[in-house]
Structure formats: structure tokens, C-alpha cells
């Protein structure tokens, strides 16, 4: 075990994967000499050389397209998109190609690319350095989507992703890259797909969150303990595949659900969670489902602290839900 920040855990995960498997390589903008604009790839160029840590021209469709070609050949490329806000030039390669290669070829061409990219607000990044577009990718059949909320999961999920056979979008909550530290298992630590993690046990309300919203929700949950409201906090971390069992089991127990994410509400990932509850846990629900999310606007700069769900807003939602008849 080593105490690491989240971004260090990502770095260690990459290091571990590259050390154990010569087919793993990294490509992206500023990932080599510069070590990544967030230093996630720091030191890797020196350790593994320019053939495996590749600084690319400024073209996201180039990065993902080339990674796909490498994967078709049997390599395990890990592509970095500098900010998820800049992933859209690669959207065609991701949605039309990466997600569909195995299917469209009848299983002949698996296409195992991991795309790592920082997402989310809270660093005063304004419209284009703050987005949380996980719903686009979760809606795209053929992609797995992971979002860690702590250093151990960051490393464990990343290693699972790199050693998987399917394409994975790995979203890193950059807001807590450095503010959250934790013990991270050394070596080949893996956290499986499709397994949520219970952050707080509780019986009154179920709270579902992921990424940088997990510590925010935890703060709210902890504060409410004093009021006698015992919320259960579940960190989904694997958005696709989703741990539906954990979602349903918790709501069957509590009868109440609050869903938290940064992305705009309309057609966000939270909609799917609420929909599953309306389909499969309706008779357990004692109160309306509540979503605490970003607003249905682009992400603002000066007012980001008001845009992002904070512990107060989450607590308010939990409280309301707990009391709803």
C-alpha cells in the first residue's frame, strides 16, 4: 500500500500496465516530454521510451483513429484526450468505429482501446474545461465507461480497463486529482467492472453518485447523520456495465433515491438510473426520485461554484426525500 493522490494512482496504474505488458502504449497530446498537462504520464517517457509514449500532433480523431489501428493489430493503446471537452473531434472514431468494430465485423475485429481523459468542473475551467459528457458514451452500445472517485479505484479500474478486451472510456475527475489522497495497493491491483461500492451504509435514503460527486455526497450524508437521517451512499464507478443489482437492492431497502451528477440533468446519466427505478423498483419507492445535477446550461466560469452540486444541495435533496410521504 502506498499513499497516493488520484492522479498519482493513475500514473502508477499506467506504469504497472506498461511494465507488465510490452503491448501497452500511450499516445496523446503532450503526454511524453511534458508528462501530460496534469502530469498523469509523468516519467513514463523516460522509463519506456518514445516508441511507447507517443506525443502526437494536435488531432483527437488522429489519436483515437491511430489507437484503433494499433488495437486491431493487437496492441493495447491507452489514448489520452487532454480534456474530455476536446474529445468531440474524435467522436466519429469513438462512436462509429471503436464502439462498433467488434460487432460490425461479426466478432472478427475486437478493438481494445482505453481512452483516458480528465472530466468535470471545479477547477475554474469554464465551458470547455469542465464538461461531464458521460451520458453520450454510456448511450453508445459497445463502450464501457468507468469513473473512479478515489486513488485506489483509479488504479484498480484503470488496470482492469487496460487488461480488458473491450473499448473503455476512462473518465478521471480532475477536480480531485490532487485533493483526494488514499492508500493504493501496490502491484497489479484490479477493481472489476460492474461493481458499485458502498461508501456509507444507511437505511433511510439511497444516494447514487460517481467521480468528484462522491466526496461531495459523502459530506452531505455525513452531515445528515447528525439530523438522524441515515443515507446510504453508493459510488457507481462502473457506469457501463452498471451494477444494477446494487442500485435495486439499496432502493428496495430504503425506498428512496437521490441521484447526483455534475452533468446537465436532461437526458443525463441520472435519467437512466431513475428510469431503471421506475421500471424495476416502482413498488419499493416511497418517495419521488430526486436528481441533483448540473443545470441544463453550458458550464459557466465565474459561477461554477453555484452550478456544481454541492453538499448543501445534496443534503437538501436527501432531507426532502427522506421526509416525503
Amino acid at each position: 500500500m502506498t499513499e497516493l493522490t488520484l492522479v498519482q494512482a493513475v500514473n502508477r496504474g499506467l506504469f504497472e500496465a506498461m511494465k507488465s505488458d510490452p503491448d501497452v502504449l500511450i499516445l496523446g497530446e503532450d503526454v511524453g516530454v511534458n508528462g501530460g498537462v496534469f502530469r498523469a504520464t509523468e516519467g513514463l517517457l523516460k522509463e519506456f521510451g518514445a516508441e511507447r509514449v507517443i506525443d502526437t500532433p494536435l488531432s483527437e480523431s488522429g489519436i483515437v483513429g491511430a489507437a484503433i489501428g494499433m488495437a486491431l493489430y493487437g496492441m493495447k493503446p491507452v489514448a489520452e484526450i487532454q480534456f474530455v471537452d476536446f474529445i468531440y473531434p474524435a467522436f466519429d472514431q469513438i462512436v462509429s468505429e471503436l464502439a462498433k468494430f467488434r460487432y460490425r465485423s461479426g466478432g472478427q475485429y475486437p478493438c481494445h482501446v482505453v481512452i483516458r481523459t480528465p472530466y468535470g468542473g471545479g477547477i475554474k475551467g469554464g465551458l470547455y474545461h469542465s464538461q461531464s459528457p458521460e451520458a453520450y458514451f454510456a448511450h453508445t452500445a459497445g463502450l464501457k465507461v468507468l469513473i473512479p472517485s478515489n486513488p485506489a479505484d483509479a488504479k484498480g479500474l484503470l488496470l482492469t480497463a487496460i487488461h480488458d478486451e473491450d473499448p473503455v472510456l476512462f473518465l478521471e475527475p480532475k477536480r480531485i486529482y490532487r485533493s483526494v489522497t488514499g492508500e493504493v495497493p501496490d502491484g497489479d491491483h484490479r477493481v472489476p467492472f460492474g461493481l458499485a461500492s458502498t461508501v456509507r451504509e444507511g437505511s433511510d435514503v439511497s444516494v447514487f453518485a460517481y467521480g468528484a460527486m462522491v466526496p461531495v455526497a459523502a459530506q452531505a450524508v455525513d452531515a445528515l447523520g447528525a439530523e438522524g437521517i441515515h443515507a446510504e451512499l453508493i459510488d457507481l464507478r462502473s457506469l457501463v456495465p452498471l451494477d444494477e443489482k446494487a442500485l435495486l437492492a439499496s432502493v428496495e431497502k430504503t425506498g428512496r433515491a437521490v441521484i447526483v451528477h455534475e452533468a446537465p440533468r436532461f437526458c443525463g446519466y441520472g435519467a437512466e438510473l431513475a428510469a431503471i427505478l421506475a421500471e424495476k423498483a416502482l413498488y419499493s419507492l416511497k418517495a419521488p426520485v430526486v436528481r441533483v445535477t448540473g443545470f441544463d446550461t453550458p458550464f459557466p466560469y465565474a459561477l461554477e461554484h453555484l452550478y456544481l452540486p454541492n453538499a448543501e444541495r445534496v443534503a437538501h435533496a436527501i432531507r426532502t426525500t427522506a421526509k416525503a410521504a
Partner: protein
Amino acid sequence: MPTQPLYRKLRSERRSNSVADPTPSTAVDATGAEARIPSTDLLGVYRMMVTSRVVDERCLTLQRQGRIGFYVPMQGQEAAQVGCTWALSPEDWIFPAYRELGVALTRGVPLKLLLDQFIGNSGDALKGRQMPNHYGYRAFRFVTASSPVGTQIVQAVGTAMAARRKGEPIVTATFFGDGTTSSSDFHSGLNFAGVFRAPTIFFCQNNQWAISLPREKQTRSETLAAKSVAYGIPGVVVDGTDVHAVYGAVAKARELALAGGGPTLIEAQVYRLGPHSTSDDPRRYRSDEELNAWKAKDPIARLKHELLADGQLTEEADHEVWESTKAEVAKALAASEAMAPVQPRTMFEDVFAHIPLALEEQRDQFEALSAPGATKP
């Protein structure tokens, strides 16, 4: 056998009375020993071109008869496709678009396998998942095509980079049309290839049209090959109706790539003699005169005349080539049409390596509903 130069030279012409006019000069180096199609191969090349034509015509008919759902013909592009593929090694990876029948056949993909794909039956390697013409076969290093144009270009570059890293002495060859040079991934692919000196051959079949848009309205670039200048890589224009020229250009590009010299952009000037696809009516946008002028340059006729002149072929032998090919196609078609349809259950496979729980649930519900009487009140 032709002894004329294999490349059509590019002229540097001024196009506009501009401030600072670029004088594009995608120079063509026609010096040095040209690789030539071995004389003993020529009948094989011819047969492959004829096969392409026969399959193509048959498929147009099949589509009209409703026996296949859609078809993208390639008539007029036989010399470009067969000549290019002939110059590749079977180990080289091919990244096609949707019009590469001649490439697939030359690569050795069995006719029945292709027909299975056109029909989308249980013999289809793609499990009936894609429209006709979007086939691909891992065993033949022929990557499964998609419809969005250009995406394969940069993928071919990635594969080339990977192969070089793995030390395999191969190239990747990617096929696309004139219209596709305007796509985003043409730009990213060629730029990456230039920067990383990827052993990739960019084989652009300029068939003069992108559906209804003529080449001149696609780009103001003097030639498509001239676009290579933007990426610091060699660019070559060849007469795509001349199988020798195509073969020579590709062989040379391949040699260069294997020697570490990086990629080449080849523009093969051809013509799409048929419609864009069976959904298209080219009379809406192009003239009979233009069509007829290009019909006079039919690449199959051109090679036939050469072989006749050369004594390698007689009219009777030619007749036999066509008839035996037709018979082969008929046989493969019969076998293909006898295949069972794809199983509904397969629809849920291959989204991921393993079917996730939620999708299993969808499949099970689907199967329960499909059971006889399941949807009755």
C-alpha cells in the same frame, strides 16, 4: 507489353492571379527501374479484373431482383483495384472503403464468402450485421469496412505503426475516393503518417465523382496527389485504367515504406462507370458524353487488347475466361442462396467480448416474446 512511362506527369500550372500563388508540383519520379507485373502474371490479373466485372454485373441484377438489398458497383475501377492489390503482399493489411470488390477478390476472398455477406446469411463472417459491400475478413488481413468515409485512413496508419513496432515487414494500404479527401480523417491520417513515417499506402481512387459532386467542386487542389505536399510525403498520380502504371506505383511505394521512407499518397485516376450505388441515378448529374468518353477507356478492354497483341490471349480464350467466370459466380451464388438465415440470437453477440447481464436480460425477454403465442393476449 507497354513501354511507355507508367506515370502521368503532373504539370505545375498557375491557377489564379493571386498575390502569392502556390505552384503545386507534385513531382513524379519516373526514373529508376520500374517494378513491372511479371509477364506470367498478366493472365491472372486479367482474369481477376474480369471476375470483378462479372460479379459486379451479377450483383446489380441480384439487387434489381430483390435477392440482395443494396449494392455498390465498381465498374471502371478494376485495373486500379487489381493492379494495386497485385503489388501488395498477402501479409499487408488492407483498409478498404465500400467499393473494393476487386481488392477483396485479388486478395483471395472466396466468392461465396462475399455473396454470403451481400445476402447477410448465416455464412456471412459479419453475421448479417452490415449492408452489402461492408465486408471484412481477418484471415485475409482485410479489415471490415464501415460507411462513414475516411475513418479507415487513420486506422491504417495506426496499424502500420504497430506493425513496425512489432518488427513485421509489412505495409498497410488504405482505399478511399476523391470525395473522401475532404474528410477530417484524410487530414489526420496523412498528417500522422507523415510525422511518424508510417509504412502506409494511401490509395485514392479518384473516380471523378462523390455521388453527385464532381471532382472539381470537391477541392481546388490541382490534383489530389498534390495534397501530399501538406504532409511532406510523396504524392503520385497514375492512370488508373492502366494496370501496369498502378502496379508500378504501388510496388514502388511499398518498397519505400518498407525501407523506412514512410507513406505515399497515390491518386489513381479512374471513372465510376456505374451509379454510386443501387440507390443512385447518375443521369441526374452527369452527361452521357462524359460517360462514353470514359467507357472508351475501359480498363478491361485495354488489358485485353494488350494481351491479344501480345499473343497471350485469343478471342476464344477470352470468351472462355468470361464464361468460366460466370459459371463460377453462378455456382457460388447457388451455394450462398442455399444458406440458412442468421439466427436472431446472434444479434446480441459481439457488442462486447462477453454479453453483459443487462443485454442478456434484453435477449431473454426478446426470445420469450418471440416464442409462439407469447404476444397473444
